[in-house]
């Protein structure tokens, strides 16, 4: 009757022991965390006795996976950032303008003079003076199109050109926009990661969300502002030729020129050529330093192509001023004194030492390809997080104790079997959470406490059923057997429906709510396992040893 094959017994015990061993590191959280950190440092090539001692705090034959604590428990900053992917379109079209101008200028006889017209940032408008040449101009500009390299957009070209009388309008094609957006997002992710890594924070989460968003979570920082300062600056550095200097903010500029304010001098503006001579992308290094007067400055070095462009430009324009522009503001506008070969230089301005250090970090990490908007920001102080952990632990312990006492009183020995299974169940939840590297949040703790209450349900169903079967006097072994088999369909149905809601929560929710869905869903799976297999095994083992003639449930 009541039989469980040896093989099955071994498997059940193996799973239980596996769960316990995986959960074990969490009981020594701080120690294991320090040990893991030390090991990571040693792995990166650095090693000394102190590190080895710290690493040795936790034996390496034991698993060292820990449950990640969510920001609401650990404290830290959470930012949801939207990347202004459209910013890049304007730059692409600006870069296209010289090409368009040159290809049209080559056929001046047919198309006449070429001028760029004022337009929105997502299109390039070009007027030709000979309207009859529009067809030929259209053909020429279309000839500039290049195929887009994407998986889906095969065969699509990067630009779309249309003509309305003498005005040609160039826009980026849909396929090109998608490809550009993807590139922009990858660059933005990479640069945000580099900047945060440079600042040396531990275990940041930086991941793409949806089409144009990035989730940034940095544990342990005191305020979201610190992170915003670091990632919020575009740090787009360019060197542009200066046309004039003015104090009139309403100065009219040609479409291929820009008006940029001075960073240091209030009310001073510069008219600059839109196309830069060199840009920050060509930098290979930037370091904080001091100028000859001992004021903080940033020294930089270009890569070979940037160095060549910069060298050629300075050689040809001795005596002319050029501007160093950071994010649309002129940091300084020195006059070129001599040819600058070698591609290194120094940026001076009214920096503090801290600002020059920051600027160097930003320039080194590279410019963000597009601006960022902060959609959501949350900062949780570490004390509040620790407080939540302490309260969660206390509540879980009290809840568990209440349930255990209640189950013991209600079902006697069988209740204690269920209680043992309940504790094993909790260990298994932690074991699986550690194995998956899942994140535990405050609602997640609530999910565990709720699981404590609900986990006994499957056992309750079985025990109640055994009680009923006992009434019809079939003998204890048969009653237990029937209790388990007849309660099974209710257990399965009831838990699958809860599992459905947990998966929906996981799919739709974010952050803390997702943490709740994980512990709830996991709790269901482990509690069904412990109820159907573990308590049953306990009961069978007990039954085999005692062979009772009657049982009381």
């Amino acid at each position, binding site marked *: 009757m009541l039989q469980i094959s040896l093989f099955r017994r071994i498997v059940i015990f193996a799973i239980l022991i596996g769960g316990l061993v995986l959960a074990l590191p969490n009981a020594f959280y701080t120690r294991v965390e320090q040990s893991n950190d030390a090991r990571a440092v040693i792995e990166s090539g650095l090693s000394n006795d102190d590190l080895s001692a710290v690493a040795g705090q936790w034996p390496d034959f034991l698993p060292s996976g820990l449950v990640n604590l969510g920001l609401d428990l650990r404290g830290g900053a959470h930012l949801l950032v939207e990347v202004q992917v459209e910013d890049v379109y304007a730059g692409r079209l600006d870069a296209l303008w010289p090409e368009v101008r040159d290809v049209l200028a080559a056929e001046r006889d047919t198309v006449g003079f070429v001028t760029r017209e004022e337009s929105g940032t997502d299109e390039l408008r070009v007027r030709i003076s000979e309207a009859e040449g529009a067809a030929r101009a259209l053909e020429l500009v279309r000839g500039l199109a290049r195929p887009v390299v994407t998986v889906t957009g095969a065969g699509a070209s990067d630009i779309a050109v249309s003509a309305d009388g003498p005005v040609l309008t160039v826009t980026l094609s849909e396929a090109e926009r998608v490809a550009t957006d993807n590139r922009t997002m990858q660059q933005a992710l990479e640069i945000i990661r580099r900047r945060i890594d440079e600042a040396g924070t531990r275990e940041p989460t930086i991941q793409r969300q949806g089409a144009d968003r990035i989730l940034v979570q940095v544990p342990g920082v005191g305020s979201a502002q610190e992170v915003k300062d670091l990632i919020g600056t575009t740090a787009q550095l360019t060197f542009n030729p200066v046309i004039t200097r003015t104090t009139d903010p309403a100065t009219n500029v040609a479409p291929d020129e820009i008006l940029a304010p001075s960073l240091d001098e209030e009310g001073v503006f510069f008219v600059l050529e839109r196309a830069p001579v060199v840009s920050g992308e060509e930098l290979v290094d930037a370091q904080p330093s001091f100028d000859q007067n001992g004021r903080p400055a940033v020294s930089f070095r270009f890569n070979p192509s940037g160095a060549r462009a910069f060298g050629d430009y300075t050689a040809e324009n001795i005596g002319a001023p050029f501007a160093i522009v950071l994010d649309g503001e002129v940091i300084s506008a020195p006059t070129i004194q001599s040819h600058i070969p070698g591609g290194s230089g120094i940026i001076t301005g009214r920096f503090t030492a801290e600002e020059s250090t920051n600027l160097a970090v930003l320039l080194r990490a590279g410019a963000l390809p597009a601006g960022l908007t902060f959609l959501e920001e949350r900062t949780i102080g570490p004390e509040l997080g620790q407080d939540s952990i302490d309260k969660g632990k206390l509540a879980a312990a009290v809840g568990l104790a209440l349930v255990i006492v209640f189950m013991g009183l209600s079902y006697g020995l069988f209740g204690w079997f269920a209680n043992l299974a309940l504790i094993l169940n909790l260990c298994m939840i932690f074991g699986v959470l550690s194995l998956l590297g899942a994140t535990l949040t405050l609602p997640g703790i*609530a999910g565990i406490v709720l699981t404590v*209450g609900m986990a006994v349900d499957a056992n309750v169903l079985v025990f109640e059923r055994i009680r009923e079967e006992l009434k019809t006097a079939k003998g204890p072994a048969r009653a237990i057997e029937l209790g388990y088999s007849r309660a099974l369909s209710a257990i399965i149905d009831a838990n699958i429906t809860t599992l*459905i809601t947990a998966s*929906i929560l996981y799919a739709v929710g974010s952050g803390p709510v997702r943490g709740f869905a994980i512990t709830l869903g996991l709790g269901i799976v482990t509690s069904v396992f412990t109820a159907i297999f573990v308590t049953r095994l306990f009961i069978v083992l007990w039954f085999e040893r005692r062979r009772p003639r009657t049982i009381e449930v």
Partner: protein
Amino acid sequence: MRLRLVPSETNINFFRFAGLTFGASVVAVIASIILFLTMGLNFGIDFRGGTTIRTESVQSIDVGAYREAIDALDLGDISITEVFDPTFRDDQNVAQIRIEAQPGEESASTETILAVEQALQQVDPSITFPAVESVGPKVSGELIQAAILAVTGALVAIVIYIWLRFEWQFSVGAVAALIHDVAITIGLFSLLQIKFDLAIIAALLTIVGYSINDTVVVFDRTRENLRKYKTMPLVEVLNLSANETLSRTLMTSTTTLLALLALLFLGGDVIRGFVFAITWGVVVGTYSSIYVAKNVVLMLGVKRDWSGTDKPKGNKFADIDA
């Protein structure tokens, strides 16, 4: 000696006051809808954007002085509530400040938050800010959509599952019970004006999960009894099934409530709203599986004579039971 919540044999007629209990449920649902429409919900920043700042101080909190300091900044509608919790230390005074989304901003600008923090530091130099959260209107709009999607998605998925495993009448009964639970919970949150945020949506789904769990257990027994007692009137089968599962229903509700009450009292104020919603939902869910779901099944009736058809349709998966 065993602790028994209910005697081992019960024969309660759950349909005796069917009109009264079902009527009460209908009235409660309607009242909840009216409450929701008239008083609305006290949406948190997840759903309407804005900023919340949690303050903590060793000095006692003077809400008036806080308000005066922040009003000077002209930030529109603000709300300041002092938070009380039995687990706080004696010198731990906590307040929650909410600032509405500032026009033209995606998320509260740093300047706004800094200005508020500085203004409050003027009032109370020992003040600290353990949590600052800010959600832009764009995200909050999406979160509302996601929340509605989650709740309806869960309901639809459950209807489909129950329909596959049972007759369609059970599916309708189960969903009626779920809508009942969700509506009454929303009504209570509307009445008490407790902050309604993303965590409460998670709580609603948990209630849905718990309530359906309870309902399914009763239905499972009903299905079994329908096969066992082929001639017994439906009302008696339903009653018998409810009586047979009553002990389990109350046992599970009690263990769950024990755990939840520990969390409600000791778990701290940060998740109190969330735990409160679930606790309430367990009570309502238990009630609805006894008094709502079955009544709907009874009203709809269940086709019991399958002699005319070869195989019962619509319950292809109904024979998985061991």
